[in-house]
Structure formats: C-alpha cells, structure tokens
C-alpha cells in the first residue's frame, strides 16, 4: 500500500482534487460529474464501455500496426535507394514539425468519413515515430561492425538481415513505446471529430445528451488504455534493450 502510494500519489491527488473541487464549487453535473458517479456508471455498464473500447482498439491497433509497418518499410527503402532517402527525409521532418492531429479535418475530407479513414489517420500519426526511430535504428549498428562485415565479405542481403535489422530492434521498441499510447488518444480524437464508432463517438453522443458521467467515463477508459499501453510498451522495451546491450 505504501509502495503503491509512493508511485501513484500523483493520479490519486488528481482524483482527490476532482472530487473536492466538484463538491466545493457545487457545479452542476452537466459541467463536471462526481468521480464517484463516473466510477459507478463504469461499474454498472461494463458492456457499454467494453464495446466502445473494443471499437477504439479496432481502430488503434490496426492503425498502429499499419503505421509502424509503413514507417519501417519506408525506413528500409531509404537504406536501399538514395532517391527515397532524399524524398522521405524532408517529408519526415515536415511531419515531425506538424501537429498531425490538427490536420484530421483535411484527412477526413480527403478520405471520407469511414472507419478506414480513422485507421489511416492513426497510421499516419504512428508512422512518424516508426520512420524516425527505424531510420536511426537501421544506422545504429554497433561500432566497427560494418568493417567486420566488409572484411568477412558479407553481401548486401547478409548486411541487412544479420546486421541492420537486428540492430534496429531496440529503436523499434522505442517507436512502439511512443506510438502505442498516442495511437489510443489519436483514435479517440479522430472518432470524436468524425463521430464514427468507439469511445470517441460515445463521448460525443453522451456529451450532447449531457450524460457527462458517461462522457467522462469514456475519457477515463481511454486514459487507462493509453497508460496501460505506455507501461506495457515500456516494459517490453526494457526487456528487449537489455538483451541488446
């Protein structure tokens, strides 16, 4: 218990401030619900939340996978072709300086209001860390190893399969740690803006109907999912990186 508090006093404090703040200001439930009301709504409607969360995960997971795959593949292409390198590096720099979520309106106009658009949006958002970290990872071969491979007469294939790809695994995990929690929040935002499926749409509908405890419940579920993704990815990253040092 003491250890739990030592680690989680922050979020507990947040909850406390929320409860006390709502109680002290006497603000109407439609502005901000009691945390207890939210937790009770969550406890008594697990199916509703479960289904919505599943919807969000159905966007976030394929989006994340596609984004990571795309980023990895393009980073690989950069290894082989100088033309791709010249094309993709400025593009990646542009993307990294852009608030991608801010262009969801453009993307939804471009691709239409479907679930595929949601996945595309999440994929684009996850693409960036994947590309940047894989690109660096494929280059972060151990000192001197390129000379070793050259001296032992390794071909391009061996260089890729036995050196660059394994060397990039830790960077891959870093990309995952950064992209996974973002994927959940990006799905939520895209669902909210496009009003399609999942927690984001449920958030919007319940907000419009003033069922604020459910709306806040949706945010809470998304938060928990995102934080879980973060810590899972963090542990995976640590486990893998340990093997790579």
């Amino acid at each position, binding site marked *: 218990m003491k250890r739990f508090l030592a680690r989680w006093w922050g979020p507990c404090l947040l909850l406390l401030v929320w409860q006390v703040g709502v109680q002290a200001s006497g603000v109407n439930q439609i502005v901000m619900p009691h945390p207890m009301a939210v937790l009770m709504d969550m406890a008594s409607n697990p199916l509703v939340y479960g289904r919505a969360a599943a919807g969000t995960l159905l966007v976030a997971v394929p989006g994340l996978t596609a984004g990571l795959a795309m980023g990895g593949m393009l980073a690989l292409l950069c290894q082989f072709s100088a033309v791709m390198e010249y094309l993709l590096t400025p593009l990646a720099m542009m993307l990294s300086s852009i608030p991608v979520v801010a262009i969801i309106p453009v993307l939804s106009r471009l691709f239409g209001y479907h679930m595929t658009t949601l996945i595309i949006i999440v994929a684009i958002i996850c693409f960036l860390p994947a590309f940047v970290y894989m690109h660096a990872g494929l280059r972060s071969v151990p000192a001197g190893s390129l000379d070793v491979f050259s001296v032992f007469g390794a071909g391009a294939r061996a260089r890729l399969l036995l050196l660059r790809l394994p060397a990039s695994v830790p960077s891959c995990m870093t990309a995952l740690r950064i992209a996974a929690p973002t994927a959940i929040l990006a799905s939520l935002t895209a669902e909210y803006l496009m009003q399609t499926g999942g927690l984001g749409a449920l958030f919007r*509908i319940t907000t419009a109907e003033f069922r604020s405890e459910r709306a806040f419940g949706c945010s809470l579920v998304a938060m928990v999912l995102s934080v879980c993704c973060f810590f899972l990815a963090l542990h995976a990253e640590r486990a893998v990186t340990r093997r790579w040092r």
Partner: protein
Amino acid sequence: AETPSLPVVRLKLGWIANVQYAGEWIALDRGFFRDQGLDVTWTAGGPNAPDPAVMLAAGRADLSYMSWLPFLDAVARGNDLVILGTEMPRNPLGVISLPAHPVRVPRDLLGLRILAQGVNETTSINAVLAIAGLPRQWTFVPAGFAPDPLLDGQGDAFVGFDTNQKLTLEMMGLKQDRDFIFTNFADLGFVTPAALLVTTRAYLTQNRPRVVAFLRALIQGWTFNETDPAVAARLVVEKYGEDYGFDLDQQILQNRSQIPFTHYRGMPSRPLLSLDRDMMAGPMYAAARAAGRTALPDIDRIADFTVVPEAFKGI
C-alpha cells in the same frame, strides 16, 4: 468606448459567429443594446463547443441559444432553465435527397443510407419515423458539414439546412427539384423551432428588466435586418466573424434565405422572437415524446411567454 457602468449581459451563441445571428450583430453595431442600457458581450459556439446549457450551468453566460431536445435533457439533469423566445420559429433543417431516391414523405426514408453530421440530425430522422409510426429502418452514414458526399454517392440523402447546404448545392449550379429534392423536417411531421433563447430561472427573476431590455434591442436588430440582408452579412464578414474567413456573397444569400424562417408560417402578425404557446404545447411536446423524452415538465415551468410581448410593447 463603452460606459463602464452599464450592466453586462453575456450571450452564448449556439453556433459560430455567422449571419445566423444577424439581429445581434446589428443591435451591437448600431448601439441598440447600449441604448437599452446594456453592455452585451458574446461568445461563439461551434461544432465542438460545449453545449450552451453547460455554459449557463457553469455560470459563464446569462443568455444562450439552445435546441429543443438538448434543452429538455438539460432540464432533466436538474437545470432550472426558462425559454424566453425563439430566433427561428421555423426550423430550416431538412432532408436533401437525389431524384433517384426522393424523400418527400416519412416512408421515403426507409432503407436509405442517410448522411448526417451528429446527434441533432439523427434524432430528427428517428423522431420523424416515430411520429409516423414507422420502424427505424435506415443506415447512418457519418458526414461532415459539406453536402458533397451525397453527390459522390456515399449516401442517398443528407440532413442539412435550407439556409446552408441547400444554398451550397445551388451555388454549385444544381437546381432544386431537378437535381435534388429538399424537404423540411416540419413537412415530414417533426416540428420544432431552431434556436430557442434560454436563461436560468434565477437570472430571469433577478434581472427581468435587463432581459426585457435585451430582447427589445434584439427585436430592433432583427427588424432592421429585414430592410437590407447585406448589412448584417457585411458586419459578420468584416467585424464580428472576421476570423472565420466567410464569403460575403454566401452570407448575404444565407441571411436572405433565413429571414422567412424567423417568422411563423401564415402568422405574419406574431412578433419576432416570440414563442407560440400552441406550437409548444402541441407539435413540440409531441416531437419530444416521439424522440423518446418522457416525464416532460409542465410548460410554464420551462417557458415564459410574457417577456417578448413586454419587450415588443416598448418599441
């Protein structure tokens, strides 16, 4: 420039600061509010903005524009709100359909893929079907504000405004009844006003003269608007809504086309902004019940029909 002593009235708009609030812009610009001894400030709404009821509940606004069903929901959640009047007694919302699947009567909706923006639109469709005693047999296709997915064939019908999306189509060169069909929700049996002017009971009791004064200036503004639709449009584009990047012609067109909706059909004598008790007691309550709202509050608990006539008298 304002005299600091004037009491402040904070108005929360239900939508972005466009020509839909023509009366307000004119009253602000011409000093009608000031003449009534008020310093009126406003905040805009928008597609993602919190509902005006939330702003009232949070104490960040004194008056606001709301829609009928959200109003009932907010009251059901323990907010003591009062309707003072309506900016648009006739709702411009309707269904745009293509000649292939024209929507003229409720039954035409059955089996269609309908493009709609949000809760307000989908509830309207469901209410139409409920009132007509039809099953909810239609597919919701999420859409943005612009009607072009309809033309792309992503849906069979689009829920939009007479004063907006219909105009967009016409500006694209399409002709009503030849290239598309527009049917107002009122003609489908779902009758609600578009923008209700709402305040809290507490505010009304404590500041009744202020509310009356506000409405008086507002009526003057709307009356002035009918003399030249371009004035308010220009005010929006150049002053109050300058940061939205509006198109002046579009705003003029929208203003001109919205003026009929500020009057009751067939009742030219009804003062601007007044709420008709019979419409409320009849079609509006029926619509609420059809939309699944039960245990509706008593009409006099949620509406005050005396403020607008009192304001009108002073002009």
